[in-house]
């Protein structure tokens, strides 16, 4: 046997007890995150975990990392600010499908095009659970909820296709039905040098439909590896991503084999370039003082 871990999953678990509904998929997701972080081995104080609002956005509080349960839909810009201010931090962002694809939907594109070195984990339950079961951006067409009494007339957002189309360098999908696979995927996402997106089908036991519960997910799930999918093939990934909602493909859809520089790398480069002729820090105010 090999491999010793300096940090164990329990080192990332805070004393705060989760208050999700018993049976919620998010219990599994937080365990997957603990395990992935233990495998990465960074101490909790070197990790910043940012979320928006929603059931799943409680997740930073359940870890020992620095956490910010922020504003609805704004986890990504805040995570970006943190990463730019302190590039050495490992920055994670998390939230639900409503937080990520509705209220915060406009932010994903920009983090992807900047290639911010952030891992974004979405716990996609196709419903607004915290506010008691309204239609969310990933709810299936025809879904009956308290805000769609006669069935939704809208097509759902496809988070996988959406992020692939924007050019994300790492796109994967996981499920609480496979904790081992999920923690391996989260670990891989964290290790990817650039923006990494992990969509986790995390059932809402209270407002989710029967087909979206663990048993239903198991019936439609299969690994991308078993399909012989090559994660370096972006077009094949986009083809498979179109099955979102009907099949649950687990694994890495796309991993850019030649990751481009991250925004942080470019900022550093620019700083190095511009600082050559710059005044030393202690004289920076001289620029603004008329002599």
């Amino acid at each position, binding site marked *: 046997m*090999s491999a*010793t871990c300096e940090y164990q999953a329990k080192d990332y678990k805070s004393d705060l007890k989760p208050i999700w509904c018993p049976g919620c998929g998010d219990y599994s997701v937080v365990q997957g995150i603990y395990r992935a972080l*233990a495998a990465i081995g960074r101490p909790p104080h070197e990790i910043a975990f940012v979320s928006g609002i929603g059931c799943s956005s409680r997740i930073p509080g359940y870890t020992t990392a620095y956490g910010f349960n922020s504003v609805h839909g704004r986890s990504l810009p805040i995570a970006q600010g943190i990463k730019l201010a302190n590039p050495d931090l490992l920055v994670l962002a998390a939230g639900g499908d409503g937080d990520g694809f509705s209220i915060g939907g406009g932010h994903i594109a920009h983090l992807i095009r900047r290639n911010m070195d952030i891992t974004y984990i979405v716990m996609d339950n196709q419903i607004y659970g915290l506010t008691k079961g309204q239609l969310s951006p990933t709810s299936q067409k025809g879904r009956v909820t308290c805000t769609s*009494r006669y069935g939704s007339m809208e097509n759902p957002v496809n988070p996988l296709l959406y992020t692939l189309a924007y050019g994300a360098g790492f796109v994967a999908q996981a499920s*609480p039905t496979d904790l081992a696979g999920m923690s391996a995927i989260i670990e891989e996402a964290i290790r990817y040098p650039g923006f990494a997106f992990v969509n986790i089908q995390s059932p809402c*036991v*209270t407002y989710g439909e029967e087909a979206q519960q663990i048993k239903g997910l198991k019936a439609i799930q299969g690994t991308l590896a078993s399909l012989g999918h090559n994660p370096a093939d972006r077009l094949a990934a986009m083809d498979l991503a179109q099955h979102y909602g009907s099949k649950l493909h687990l694994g890495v859809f796309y991993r850019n084999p030649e990751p481009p520089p991250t925004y942080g790398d470019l900022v550093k480069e620019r700083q190095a370039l511009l600082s050559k002729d710059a005044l030393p820090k202690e004289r920076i105010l001289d620029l603004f003082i008329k002599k």
Partner: protein
Amino acid sequence: MATRGIDFANLSLMDALDLAILIEEEAEERYLDFAAQMEQHRTPEAARFFRFMASNEAKHGLELSARRAERFSDAPRVVNRSMIFDIEAPDFDAARAFMSPRKAMEAALASEVKAHAFFVAALPALRDADVRALFEELRNEEVEHQELVQLELDKLPPDSGLSDDDFVDEPSAQ
């Protein structure tokens, strides 16, 4: 239930004991989590049962730890929790708000069955005689645990007939 990176064919007795301890720890932790969830959701009977199961898992873990210490003293552990997933721990979705003691016991019984299946499945790959003996012992213990939980289940009165759906809020206009 899954494992990652365990080379069963070359598993040493110390590593096997450590894995068994980790399996008990994982189960203890999950039962404690379930108990906390039940307490949070005003389901004290199920919470009490899950705490009872957690204490059993802790007891088994301590017994195994004592054996490990006796045989291998404080030799550093080389296996870790990232190698095992839900072996004896109940599945995450096994808990439900307002679950009855019967449902809680059924969840525990399913976990014991799952753990038994793990040891049965691992046995053919084991080459070390001591490790094999340990796994056989653990497999047999799982059968005993199943019987104990079944006995407790048999003592219970029938369930109320209410299902989880009876406690779910109907969609209502906001």
